[in-house]
């Protein structure tokens, strides 16, 4: 059991590609941290550097109090679950699980006890005599987890372990891995490109892009207070709606004018920003962000609290929810998520009411959030 500290960790590949740049993160003992980002963002490289499968170009990695920079993988007492499962094809499930123990010189009787105990826990006892090619995807996944678990490692590293499974199995295994984490009381670091996995599994989520950390927060805080347009767009499905607008002020207060000719006015009352911040924005162009579930399809709304004159271009009925692609005057197009029955039919006219307190404002150049959780400025 151990926490992990990464200080200024950098990976530069031969040829000068900076895969990871100045990565700073402290992971507490027994924490479940998810590294998430688009492919090529460096998340797997970070995991592999923690495992020792990849050299570190700069910085320090501590597991517990030990500096592990130059330690071989086997000295780090970590276990890794690979995307391809990487089960040894010529060994039975039993031998696959016992392999690491054997390499460490664990006595045969204890090896046997530990393999059987773990197999019991994962409900794979009946598979022990089989070889990997006789296993289904889900079974292989369990065996890969079991192989990592028998060793009682300090840290579990999981590299996109569910991405080869079908959707239903993936949902089951998601819950199961979370349960396993609770039971094993060990540090888990989990890499995925799937935001659903990130949101549902992690105590904390680390969002990466182009080798950098963009935000480290609890799933809820990432969702509610994304630090920039990248994070805002990456987490959430359907993704957040973005639109450019100008912050203006008149007798009624500060508002945002949206649409090509400023057809739509949204009063900025109640947004997560201080009055000073908002005043400072007056006259400037910004990016506005609104999540699909923070708008409702209505007919008519209070002045300054929505968009009028639109129509439903596409209506996707998903059962419990419905996604409506609304086209609005001024070239705006928003996705709105409604719960329950189909509220509007394709081609039908509609207005949209907005929960302005859920509105996000981003700097148009840097993409950094102006709104934030303390009610003022980006964090």
């Amino acid at each position, binding site marked *: 059991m151990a926490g992990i500290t990464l200080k200024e960790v950098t990976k530069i590949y031969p040829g000068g590609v900076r895969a990871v740049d100045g990565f700073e993160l402290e992971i507490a003992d027994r924490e479940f941290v998810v590294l998430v980002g688009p492919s090529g963002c460096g998340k797997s490289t970070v995991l592999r550097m923690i*495992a*020792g*499968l990849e050299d570190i170009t700069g910085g320090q990695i501590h597991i517990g109090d030990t500096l592990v920079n130059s330690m*071989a*993988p*086997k000295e780090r007492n*970590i*276990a*890794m679950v*690979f*995307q*391809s499962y*990487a089960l*040894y*094809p*010529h060994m039975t499930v039993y031998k696959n699980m016992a*392999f*690491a123990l054997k*390499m*460490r010189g664990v006595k045969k009787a204890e090896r046997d006890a530990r393999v059987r105990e773990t197999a019991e826990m994962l409900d794979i006892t009946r598979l022990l005599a089989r*070889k*990997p*090619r006789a296993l289904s995807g889900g079974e292989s996944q369990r065996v890969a987890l079991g*192989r990592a678990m028998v*060793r009682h490692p300090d840290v579990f590293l999981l590299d996109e372990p569910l991405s080869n499974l079908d959707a239903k199995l993936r949902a089951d295994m998601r819950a199961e891995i979370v349960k396993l984490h609770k039971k094993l009381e060990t540090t888990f670091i989990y890499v995925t490109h799937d935001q659903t996995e990130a949101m549902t599994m992690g105590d904390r989520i680390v969002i990466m892009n182009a080798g950098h950390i963009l935000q480290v927060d609890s799933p809820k805080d990432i969702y509610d207070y994304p630090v920039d347009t990248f994070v805002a767009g990456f987490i959430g499905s359907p993704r957040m709606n973005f639109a450019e607008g100008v912050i203006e002020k008149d007798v009624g207060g500060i508002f945002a004018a949206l649409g090509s000719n400023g057809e739509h006015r949204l009063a900025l009352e109640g947004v997560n920003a201080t009055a000073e911040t908002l005043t400072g924005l007056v006259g400037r162009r910004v990016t506005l962000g609104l999540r699909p579930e923070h708008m409702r399809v209505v007919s008519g709304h209070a002045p300054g609290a929505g968009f009028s004159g639109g129509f439903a271009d596409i209506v996707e009925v998903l059962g419990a929810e419905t996604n409506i692609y609304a086209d609005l005057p001024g070239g705006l197009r928003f996705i709105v998520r409604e719960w329950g029955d189909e509220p509007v039919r394709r081609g039908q006219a509609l207005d949209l009411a907005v929960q302005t307190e859920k509105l996000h404002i981003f700097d148009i150049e840097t993409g950094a959030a102006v709104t934030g959780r303390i009610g003022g400025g980006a964090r």
Partner: protein
Amino acid sequence: MKRRIKERIFSFGYLLPSLAGVTVFFIAPFIQIIRYALVDNPVSNNFVGFENFIRVFNNNAFRRAAANTARFSAIAVPLAVALSLLLAMMLEAKIPGKSKFRTFFLSPMMVPVASIVLIWQVLFDYNGALNSVLASLGISPVDWMKSDYSHVIVVLLFLWKNLGYNMILFMAALSNIPKALIEAANVDGASAFRRFWQIKFRFLSPTLLFVTILSLINSFKVFREIYLLTGNYPHENLYLLQHFMNNTFGNIDYQKLSAAALIMALVMAIIIGILFLAEGRIGRDVEQ
């Protein structure tokens, strides 16, 4: 039903050209050889049973040739396989100038046999380079190709000629081993030696088989180099089965020649069969 027959006829039609070639140049001569081996001579055609085989077995030249060939293959083939695998693994590691090394080891393949023989002659002839170096050190010259060393020299020649190609085959096989498996073994705490034996070796087994058979065949072909170096009757250490066959052919003793050829084919078939069985065991479960 009709369609299936039609398909059969078509597929047979596609096979026909190569089947004809194989029949004319391999199967028919082979049957002919079996016939020759069982008669007293190809003209009178009297059946004599295994008499020709007994003659071959009792022939001193054949025994010497068989022993030499077996010894040569037994030394040269394992060396060719092991050294080329070693080279491939060394070149797989991240070392500078990798591609130059690769070219270096491959270059003997591009050199025609006659040129190779010429180089070898320049080196090992009685008046060759090696002897003049020895002379300058005050050591008396050796007629290398007519000494007991001749066997070693031919093994060296064989290795020099064959290592490169074997190495390329092994490099391709090594790069096909799933990287995650090696990494998993690494995380699991397996030493480099264990990673090789427990993981890589399994995945290499089809290539090992292929390279071994190829080297075996090439070791039989080394006759060409020896013949060009030393002619019809080399040092008794270098008198190989092909010398025997060549000379028997020169004497127009078809019966003896055919019997010897059949014995050789049988031995080869048995060796290759054993290799296939071994590969089947080691490589089981690993091949996709």
